[in-house]
């Protein structure tokens, strides 16, 4: 069967050269970086190399501003809580956008139970944060601004530089979650004005088991992982050396190949979106059109009158790996909070599929996906009572309204007795 991986937003395979770089650190150079004998010293050198590679990827002032954690989630948690607890005496207010990743939103919610407060800045219908809204949300108690570089669901690139200027002007720590962009977009922490920035190498062909947090001297943080004095006392715990070594190399390669990767995925992104919109009726792209405001790797699609999990399963049965922000695929039965934040009609959120491209996808694969997806949409519409009712004029389309009936969502709310969420 075909094997087309279109879920690079969830994770990526490790590069062969990255795996080769990791290999000696499992059985041969297996030391603990805290040890003072040669086994420990050898791996300390390896940590230092990786720190430089990460610093280079994001143009950090110094490798000493790079901290290793266990994953993107831990980096987010450390950035948010570490800054909050360190500045507790200065203030207790955090500004974030409503489309941040759960690792940030849930960290802020945890802090709210401990006496902190927050303001969530709204986004527009394509997921953009307005810098002036961030400014308006600031109070004299604000100690942290959290904004993602690129949204993980809908691919919107945020105006981080402008927000960084506001943060610098007000002297407030500025944290950028670059999990969805690192390795796929140029990142320059200095021109962004970021005091903290996090990312996770398993998203750009590095291994799982390591996350990165950049933090410069202008922002104070306290440790959230208590114990030994690893990472300058900011993250206790035995370092995951093989993963750090591999991740460092993945960062270096990502930096070297960045423009090639961007050009390649942008071409495929256009081909994929053009193919789908030509061949599938009533399909919508969520987030900005391909171009300067959208990352080149992802398409977030809503196909009307059919639900997302069915699409995902049929894609999988045809060898195509995709994700979905539909409520049926989430353990909480809620649609993605990002789709809710951009005000997407619930029926369209239900029909959501996220396709994310990588460096190894080909034009031929994209054509196969388009062709297959046309069949999947047809098949599911053939089973869908909504498609039938739309054909019969009972309900209308949200994407191309004709005025011939009530909306799918109104209809669904009517028959289920209450509005969906």
């Amino acid at each position, binding site marked *: 069967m075909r094997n087309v991986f279109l879920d690079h937003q969830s994770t990526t395979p490790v590069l062969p050269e990255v795996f080769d770089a990791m290999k000696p650190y499992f059985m041969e150079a297996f030391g603990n970086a805290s040890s003072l004998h040669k086994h420990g010293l050898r791996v300390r050198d390896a940590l230092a190399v990786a720190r430089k590679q990460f610093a280079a990827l994001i143009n950090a002032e110094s490798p000493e501003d790079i901290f290793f954690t266990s994953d993107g989630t831990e980096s987010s948690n450390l950035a948010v809580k570490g800054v909050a607890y360190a500045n507790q005496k200065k203030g207790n207010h955090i500004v974030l956008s409503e489309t941040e990743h759960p690792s940030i939103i849930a960290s802020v919610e945890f802090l709210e139970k401990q006496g902190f407060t927050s303001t969530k800045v709204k986004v527009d219908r394509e997921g953009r944060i307005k810098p002036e809204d961030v400014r308006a949300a600031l109070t004299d108690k604000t100690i942290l601004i959290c904004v993602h570089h690129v949204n993980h669901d809908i691919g919107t690139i945020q105006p981080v530089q402008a927000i960084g200027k506001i943060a610098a002007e007000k002297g407030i720590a500025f944290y950028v979650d670059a999990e969805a962009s690192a390795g796929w977009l140029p990142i320059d922490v200095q021109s962004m004005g970021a005091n903290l920035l996090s990312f996770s190498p398993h998203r750009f062909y590095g291994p799982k088991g390591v996350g990165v947090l950049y933090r410069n001297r202008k922002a104070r943080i306290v440790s959230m992982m208590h114990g030994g004095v690893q990472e300058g006392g900011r993250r206790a715990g035995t370092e995951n050396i093989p993963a750090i070594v591999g991740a460092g190399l993945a960062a270096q390669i990502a930096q070297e190949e960045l423009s090639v990767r961007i050009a390649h995925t942008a071409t495929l992104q256009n081909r994929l979106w053009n193919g789908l919109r030509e061949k599938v009726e009533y399909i919508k792209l969520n987030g900005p059109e391909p171009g300067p405001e959208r990352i080149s790797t992802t398409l977030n699609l809503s196909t009307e009158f059919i*639900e997302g*999990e*069915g699409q995902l399963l049929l894609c999988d049965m045809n060898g195509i790996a995709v994700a979905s922000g539909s409520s049926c695929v989430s353990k909480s*039965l809620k649609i993605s909070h990002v789709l809710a934040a951009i005000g997407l009609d619930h029926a369209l959120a239900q029909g959501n599929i996220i396709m994310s491209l990588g460096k190894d996808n080909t034009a031929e694969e994209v054509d196969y996906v388009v062709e297959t997806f046309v069949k999947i949409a047809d098949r599911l519409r053939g089973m*869908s*009572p909504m498609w039938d009712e739309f054909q019969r004029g009972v309900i209308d389309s949200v994407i191309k309204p004709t005025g011939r009936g009530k909306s799918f969502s109104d209809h669904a709310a009517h028959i289920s007795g209450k509005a969906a969420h």
Partner: protein
Amino acid sequence: MSETYTLYNNTVMDHFMNPRNMGDIKDADGVGEVGAAACGDIMKISLRIKDGKIEDARFKTFGCGSAIASSSMATELIKGRTVAEAMQFSNQEVVDALGGLPPVKIHCSVLAEEALKAALEDYSKKHPESLNDKKAVTA
């Protein structure tokens, strides 16, 4: 390592990939359409009933794999039952016949039960005489 990994068990996947009784019954004797407030799924079941017995059942479903499999299985199970028997139908039958559903997906089988009950209710409204049978059984 084996190369088959599915979210659902084989029976569920089979009913999702090869749904039984998919479609609408023309001039059905009873039609029920219900929606799940929890996730937004919608299910429609239509029945042909003759002499108090379900002769045919069809479904259309907007929903996830387990919603489609649940409606496929539900229609399969109730064909041939009397209206009175069908009124006793419970979602657990669907779950059991499917060999289990993930906990978070149990509500899909509930939706199938509700769609069936809504179709039977529709039938009862159109055929008040059938209520006698029903009472006889539920009493």
